[in-house]
């Protein structure tokens, strides 16, 4: 499948790529008409595209065609995050020297549920990391807006969303799939 992407400026391209949630490297040293897609060592898909300069744009370049984007778009970030999630099984207790417990099977299972829902919504988080608070943190970022879902080892899940340099809104998510979906939708509306 080919998706046609209209390029108005390098900014719009970068913005579109950012919003697509694809872990991406944008290269600046390629000819404007060249681009390619490759798998990096972590299994994520890296799309390399030129930044379209205004000079090039004035010469008539208006579209870049991204082939197979639909195929690689979802699996790109989800496979990367799932691999990261799996890697947390190898973490040792007190991994940060501050006495934090490694994520346990409950936190990993709940985080997997969060990722599954995010995958369905094609809503890519910015990171998934072990939390110093004994669990796993799944974070979202766009501009100055931030959100975080934390799945704790005791089975609880909490979420926060905030604009940088302001007080966060924090709530208990609940543990059912419906509860998690509701909180993700809330975060989606806030972040988008």
């Amino acid at each position, binding site marked *: 499948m080919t998706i046609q992407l209209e390029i108005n400026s390098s900014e719009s391209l970068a913005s579109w790529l950012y919003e697509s949630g694809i872990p991406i490297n944008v290269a600046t040293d390629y000819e404007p008409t060249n681009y390619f897609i490759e798998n990096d060592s972590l299994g994520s898909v890296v799309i390399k595209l030129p930044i379209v300069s205004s000079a090039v744009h004035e010469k008539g370049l208006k579209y870049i065609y991204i082939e197979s984007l639909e195929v690689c778009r979802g699996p790109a970030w989800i496979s990367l995050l799932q691999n990261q999630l799996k890697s947390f099984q190898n973490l040792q207790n007190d991994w*940060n*020297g*501050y*006495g*934090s417990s490694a994520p346990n099977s409950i936190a990993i299972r709940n985080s997997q549920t969060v990722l599954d829902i995010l995958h369905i919504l094609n809503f890519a988080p*910015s*990171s998934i*990391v*072990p*939390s*110093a*608070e004994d669990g796993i*943190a799944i*974070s979202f*970022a766009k501009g100055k807006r*931030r959100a*975080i879902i*934390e799945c*704790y080892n*005791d089975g*609880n899940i*909490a*979420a*926060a969303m*905030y604009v*940088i*340099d302001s*007080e*966060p809104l*924090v*709530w*208990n998510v609940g543990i059912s799939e419906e509860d998690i979906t509701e909180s993700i939708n809330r975060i989606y509306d806030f972040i988008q």
Partner: protein
Amino acid sequence: MISFSENHIPREMFRNGRPIDPVFLPDEELYIRFDRIDGENVDPACIKAPVQSVNRSKYSKAEWVLVARYPQFIDWGYGSFKVCDIPESITSEFGITHFFKVEHAPLDDNYSHSEVRAYKNGELVRRKNDVIRLKYRVILSQRIIILKMPEIY
């Protein structure tokens, strides 16, 4: 790159029989290490809700937070916040209030070691409250000044 040689904890770090010093001035700096940042701030996931260990600047250099279990954390970042940056209290949606303060808790090999602790009704909080803790961590993460970026991220 900061380098500490193996088995070379700075001598000034050892307690050597020194007493607990309970006095913290509001502008005393507290040091913390972390392995991730989020833009210009420390990732809240790196911060442990009370009890959070810190080194106090009265008895520690900032980089000494990387010495623990050398060389495990040598490529982590570190930063500082002031005593007055600690949220005085946070109240949950159900009206439960936790009060926060830093207390000196020296270790044999780290005299500066201190802990940010949470109190409720004058007693140390034992039962965790996810909402209060997460709110505390997000607020504090935005007040930490990054002194050294982590090299592992």
